[in-house]
């Protein structure tokens, strides 16, 4: 996917689509994260409110996932760069 090969009209079109996809992806990630953290952290239903332990667990869960995602993004970019560079074009 090489944007430099496209004329400005196509680039604008593609960029608009990319923006929309990024938003959808973000929303999808958000719901996944909520479900994941809820499943791992909230197992005590003797009360309606979140206990402080559960709340701390959810905070940690969210932090950890975001850091995890960031690290994977960095490694992914490295691997991609290696793949592109290696196939020598």
């Amino acid at each position, binding site marked *: *996917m090489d*944007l430099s*090969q*496209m*004329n*400005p*009209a*196509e680039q604008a*079109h*593609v960029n608009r*689509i*990319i923006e929309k*996809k990024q938003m959808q*992806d973000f929303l999808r990630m958000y719901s*996944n994260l909520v479900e*994941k953290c809820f499943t*791992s*952290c909230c197992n005590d239903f003797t009360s309606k409110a979140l206990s402080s332990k559960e709340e701390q*667990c959810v*905070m*940690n*869960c*969210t*932090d*950890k*996932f975001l*850091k*995890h*995602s960031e*690290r*994977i*993004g960095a*490694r*992914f970019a490295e*691997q991609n760069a290696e*793949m592109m560079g290696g196939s020598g074009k």
Partner: protein
Amino acid sequence: MSFLGGGRGSVAPGTINQERVEMAMQELDMVTDVFNRLVSSCHTKCISTRYAEGDLNKGESVCIDRCVSKFFEVNKKVGEKLQAMGAGAAAGGGGGFGSAP
């Protein structure tokens, strides 16, 4: 006059070549899909669900690096295998649904 790749004929610079846009979108979708699967798989394999703290500890970090590396290797090997199978099938199947006019 125009630098459009592949010389696809006289497309005016302001118009949108639907095919090329679609190909780019397909590639983007594939890359996004691989990334999402990677995040999900490596999270399941490397991150314990105790969530004792908000940062990645050293073990988890190292696990993530190795996980990404292995994932890509598996990706490559499976791709090669499928290609080989595809090539084999094409050669062996002969002109199953060949180019008969």
